[in-house]
C-alpha cells in the first residue's frame, strides 16, 4: 500500500471516528441538557427510558428516523432537502481542525483530522457556511414564518461574526500564527490567554452564544415569537439534522474557546506539585474544559431571558464591533511600543524574563480591568442597545381630547 493511500485512509478513519464521537456526543448532550435544565428548575428531568434515562437519546434518534418526512407543497424540493445537509456538514467539518493533544499522542497518530496553516480562518469560514444552511432552509420552505426566521437568523449570525473575528485578532498578534497547534504551544510556554486577553474572551464568548443560536440570542427559533423560525416546516430527520448542527457548533465553539483562551489540551501547571505529570493528560484536560463550557452554555440558557431582536442587532453593531476593534488596537499599540515576544523560529517561544521587557502582564491587567468594568458597569452600555427608536408614523397623531372613547 503506497504511503499517500495509507495516510488518506488513516485520515478518513479519524474523520469517521470524530464524526461518530460528535453524533454520540450530540445525542447525549440533549439528555444532559434536559437533565440539567430539570435540576435548575427543581425537577428530575427525564428518568424513565433505561437506567438514568441513558436510552432516551437512542429512542429519540429512532423516532426521528421513523417519522414521516413531509415535503410541503410550496417548498423548493431540492434546496429544501440540501439545506439541512449543508448545515450539518459544515458544523461537523469545523470540528476536525481542533487539536485535542500534542502531535502523535493518539496511538502514534496526530489527534486532529487536519491542521492547516490558516486553521483559525478555516474554522471561521466553516461557521459562516452554516448560515447558508439556515437561510436556504428558511427560504426553500416557501412559507412566511420560516422565511422571516431565516432572514433574522442570517442577519444575526453575520453581525456577530464581525465581533467574533475581530476579538481573535489580539491573540493572533501575540502569537503571530493562525495555526491552532502553534497557539496551544505558545500558551504552554507563556501562560493561558485568558489572563492576557480577558476582554477579548468575553467578547468572543458573547459572539459564540449568538453564533450558535443559543440561550439569550436564540432568536431564529424563538418558539414564542415566530413559531419555530426556519425550522417550522421541517420534520423527521431534517429537523434532527438542524438540531444536530446547532449542538455540534456548540461543541466546536467550546473546543475553540478552550484552544484559544484556555490553553487547549494543556492542564494548569501548578497542579504538577500534587501529582507529577498531571498537566500532560491531553484528552482528559481537553474534554474537561469543553465540558465546563458546555455546562456554562446550559446554565446561561436556564438563567437569562431572550433579548428582543432590535436590541440584539444594536448590541452586535454598537457594542461588540467597536469594543473588539478597540481591543485589537490596544494590543497593537502594546506590541508596537512596549514589548514583543522572543520568537525562536518554528514553534518555539521564549518565556518572558522580567528584565527583558514588561511581558504581556501589564496588557493582561488592562484587559482584565476592561473585562471587569464591562461586567460591573454593564448598565452604562445598556442605553446603547436598549433604547427604543423613535416611532415615525405616517399619519399625524391626533391629540386626545374630551372623554376617552368619544361619543
Amino acid at each position, binding site marked *: 500500500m503506497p504511503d499517500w493511500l495509507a495516510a488518506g485512509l488513516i485520515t478518513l478513519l479519524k474523520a469517521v471516528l470524530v464524526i461518530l464521537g460528535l453524533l454520540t456526543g450530540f445525542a447525549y448532550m440533549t439528555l444532559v441538557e434536559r437533565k440539567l435544565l430539570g435540576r435548575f428548575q427543581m425537577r428530575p428531568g427525564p428518568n424513565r427510558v433505561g437506567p438514568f434515562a441513558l436510552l432516551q437519546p437512542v429512542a429519540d434518534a429512532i423516532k426521528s428516523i421513523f417519522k*414521516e418526512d413531509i*415535503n410541503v407543497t*410550496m417548498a423548493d424540493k431540492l434546496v429544501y432537502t440540501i439545506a439541512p445537509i449543508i448545515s*450539518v456538514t459544515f458544523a461537523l467539518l469545523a470540528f476536525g481542525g481542533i487539536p485535542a493533544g500534542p502531535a502523535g499522542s493518539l496511538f502514534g497518530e496526530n489527534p486532529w483530522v487536519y491542521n492547516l496553516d490558516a486553521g483559525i480562518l478555516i474554522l471561521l469560514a466553516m461557521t459562516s457556511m452554516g448560515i447558508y444552511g439556515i437561510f436556504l432552509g428558511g427560504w426553500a420552505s416557501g412559507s*412566511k414564518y420560516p422565511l422571516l426566521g431565516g432572514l433574522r437568523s442570517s442577519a444575526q449570525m453575520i453581525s456577530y461574526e464581525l465581533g467574533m*473575528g475581530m476579538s481573535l485578532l489580539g491573540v*493572533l*498578534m501575540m502569537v503571530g500564527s493562525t495555526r491552532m497547534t502553534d497557539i496551544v504551544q505558545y500558551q504552554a510556554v507563556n501562560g493561558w490567554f485568558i489572563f492576557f486577553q480577558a476582554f477579548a474572551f468575553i467578547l468572543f464568548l458573547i459572539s459564540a452564544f449568538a453564533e450558535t443560536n443559543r440561550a439569550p440570542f436564540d432568536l431564529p427559533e424563538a418558539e414564542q415569537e415566530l413559531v419555530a423560525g426556519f425550522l417550522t416546516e421541517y420534520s423527521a430527520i431534517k429537523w434532527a439534522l438542524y438540531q444536530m448542527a446547532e449542538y455540534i457548533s456548540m461543541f466546536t465553539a467550546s473546543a475553540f474557546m478552550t484552544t484559544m483562551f484556555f490553553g487547549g489540551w494543556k492542564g494548569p501547571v501548578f497542579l504538577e506539585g500534587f501529582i507529577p505529570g498531571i498537566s500532560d493528560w491531553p484528552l482528559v484536560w481537553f474534554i474537561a474544559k469543553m465540558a465546563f463550557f458546555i455546562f456554562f452554555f446550559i446554565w446561561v440558557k436556564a438563567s437569562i431571558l431572550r433579548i428582543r431582536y432590535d436590541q440584539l442587532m444594536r448590541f452586535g453593531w454598537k457594542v461588540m464591533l467597536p469594543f473588539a476593534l478597540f481591543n485589537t488596537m490596544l494590543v497593537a499599540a502594546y506590541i508596537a511600543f512596549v514589548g514583543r515576544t522572543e520568537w525562536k523560529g518554528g514553534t518555539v517561544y521564549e518565556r518572558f524574563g522580567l528584565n527583558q521587557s514588561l511581558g504581556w502582564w501589564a496588557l493582561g491587567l488592562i484587559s482584565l480591568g476592561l473585562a471587569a468594568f464591562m461586567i460591573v458597569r454593564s448598565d452604562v452600555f445598556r442605553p446603547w442597545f436598549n433604547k427604543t*427608536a423613535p416611532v415615525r408614523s405616517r399619519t399625524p397623531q391626533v391629540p386626545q381630547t374630551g372623554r376617552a372613547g368619544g361619543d
Partner: protein
Amino acid sequence: MLVASLGIGIIAVIASALLGPKKGTRAKLMPYESGNDPEHGGVGTGQRFPVHFYLVAMLFIVFDIETAFFYPLAAAYQKLPQFAFFEALTFVILLLVGYYYILKKGVLEWR
C-alpha cells in the same frame, strides 16, 4: 472529513425517506400559517421583507473585508516595524469615519 460528514447527512436523509411512512394529505402538506389558508406564499412569489436586512448584509461585507485585511497584518505583526502600527491606525480611523456616518445615519437603529 468532507466526504465523511457529507456522507452522514446524505445517509440520514435517505434512510429517513426510505423508512418513514408516506401518507401526505392535502391539508398536511400545506404551509403552516397558524391554521389559516396560506396567502400568496411560496418560493419566488416576491414576498416583501424589511430593507434593514439588505443594509446589514452590505455593512457586513464592508467590515468583513476590513477583518480580512487585518488577519495577515495580525499574523505578521510581531515581525513588522513600529511603523506598521500607524498604518493600521490610519486604516482603522478611515473605517471609523464610515462607521460614524452609518451610526449617525441611523442604519444601526432597528425599528
